[in-house]
């Protein structure tokens, strides 16, 4: 790892540790949200940036995991040490089912995942007797394992930060491993991969499951953060935004989805404070990013740095 990268990591880490004292209650809450949705975006980017699959159903895993944990804790008084893993398990199981979608490619894959994701939203919305319908599940208690409870926003922030760092590390190893290279090979030339001895459907299915696991983890964290889960968590908007965040920050990177989450959530919070049509603004962001900055922030930075290097060489 280069010196520059090490310095960057240390600086970012320090900033994250100090943030609550700079941002206050509101800033801490916002940043926790950014961490959580960044993880959701990262899970979608495993498929998008590395395997070339544009999935629009990630909100489903996120939401199912959140609902499972919330319902278990609120309605059945199941303790956190069981409710949280159960949530992750449910979300990942859904991933096992939805993974059928990797039998399609390209446009079909996009449409199938979109429809699947929507069905989960629909079920969450209509099955009111179980999910609470529009009102959702409220009063999710603070997570508590053993005697240890994360009762304050501050404590939860550091917990989520720790989980996020762990996820980033594991993800980093995954994408540099043979499994990660295989995904990139499939994205670059699936037919060629077959002639080299790979069976792409198996790898894609596995990647899909890993991706749903990550999204489920984010969902469980969300349930305890928000203390409230409703069908909106499964909506198309969440799935669209997850992809947009990865795109805005820079796909096929680790920091990209988090940068994107920061920009999108920050923008939404800022805009909605003075302008009603914030969804329209989001729509505009979609159009602008895709048209003019498809490589995202990290892509723009890279181009900027490369241009400066070229300039320095000529000077």
């Amino acid at each position, binding site marked *: 790892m280069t010196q520059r990268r090490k310095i960057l990591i240390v600086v970012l880490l320090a900033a994250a540790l100090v943030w609550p004292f700079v941002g206050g209650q509101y800033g801490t809450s916002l940043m926790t949200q950014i961490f959580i949705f960044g993880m959701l975006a990262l899970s979608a980017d495993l498929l998008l940036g590395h395997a070339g699959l544009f999935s629009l159903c990630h909100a489903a895993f996120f939401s199912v995991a959140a609902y499972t944990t919330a319902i278990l804790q609120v309605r059945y008084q199941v303790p956190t040490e069981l409710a949280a893993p159960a949530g992750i398990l449910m979300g990942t199981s859904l991933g096992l089912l939805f993974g059928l979608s990797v039998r399609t490619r390209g*446009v079909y894959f996009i*449409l199938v995942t979109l429809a699947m994701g929507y069905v989960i939203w629909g079920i969450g919305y209509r099955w009111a007797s179980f999910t609470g319908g529009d009102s959702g599940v409220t009063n999710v208690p603070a997570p508590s394992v053993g005697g240890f409870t994360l009762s304050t926003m501050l404590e939860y922030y550091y917990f989520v930060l720790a989980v996020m760092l762990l996820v980033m590390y594991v993800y980093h190893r995954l994408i540099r491993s043979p499994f990660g290279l295989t995904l990139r090979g499939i994205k670059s030339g699936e037919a060629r991969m077959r002639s080299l001895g790979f069976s792409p459907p198996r790898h894609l299915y596995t990647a899909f499951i890993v991706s749903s696991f990550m999204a489920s983890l984010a969902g469980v964290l969300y349930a305890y953060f928000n203390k409230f889960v409703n069908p909106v968590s499964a909506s198309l908007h969440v799935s669209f935004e997850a992809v947009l965040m990865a795109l805005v920050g820079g796909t096929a990177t680790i920091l990209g989805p988090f940068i994107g989450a920061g920009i999108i959530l920050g923008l939404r919070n800022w805009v909605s404070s003075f302008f009603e049509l914030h969804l329209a603004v989001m729509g505009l962001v979609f159009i602008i990013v895709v048209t003019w900055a498809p490589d995202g922030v990290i892509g723009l930075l890279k181009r900027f740095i490369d241009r400066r290097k070229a300039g320095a060489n000529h000077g």
Partner: protein
Amino acid sequence: MNSFILQTFNGISYAALLFLLASGFTLTFGLMRIVNMAHGAYYLFGGYVGLTIAKLTGNFGLALLAGGLAAMLLGYVSDRTVLRRVGDDHLAQVLITVGIAYIVGDVSLKIWGGDAQKLPLPLFLRGVIELPGGIVYPTFRIFLTAIGIGVGVLLWLIYRRTQIGAAIRAGVDDREMVSATGIHVDRLFVIISALASFLAGVSGVLGGAFLTVFPGAEWEILVFALVVVIVGGLGSLEGAMIGALIVGLLDAYGRWLAPELSYFVLFGPMAVLLLFRPRGLFGSANMT
């Protein structure tokens, strides 16, 4: 038994609505390889404009026309300004058209408000008709089904029996070859695009008459139309017809038998398709 027949009719009338929307989407994709998620927004916008016109003039036919034209205009503007630039990149197409849909949805919310509104119907379309067998059925749904069948037949005739239809079919099969033969591909694209968005707008007015127009309707109808297209196969007109029928019927039966879990029935055909025929009933293998 009566319930079953009733639900079957419900399914068929909903299928008619879905077909109107799905046919445009599938032909747009088949010919231009463009995934247009704003179709739902065209439906919504058309529906709202139709609503306003119907309330102002009391003329349903005018409302239909206005809705269709409004959607067509919207489609044309989106096409010319942003959609042109992205070419074949499906990711970009989806995100841009979603962005357009967000903008249209939000602006519509501002203009028409958040309540579900029903389009006022002319007298002759209200009420019920008595069918043989003693079944009483809403007149409007029969009217809708008739339109769906009519448009379907018309489209099919054009598609299968005219020169322009042959050009479209050839284009769906092999775009490059068609442009090489000198047929004005660009003009064809504009025509298909316009037709698709017009149909979407008209279906919005029709949908608004019995389902109401409301914020969020654009996504619900879009997803159903997408399932139709997935099941039927992208680019296939016949697929849109059969797919619409399957989805419409399943939805009706689902709502009747298990209303809370009725969205689940959308899974069924999709899962079966994915297991046995991922490209849809009439889809060709080279569609992605």
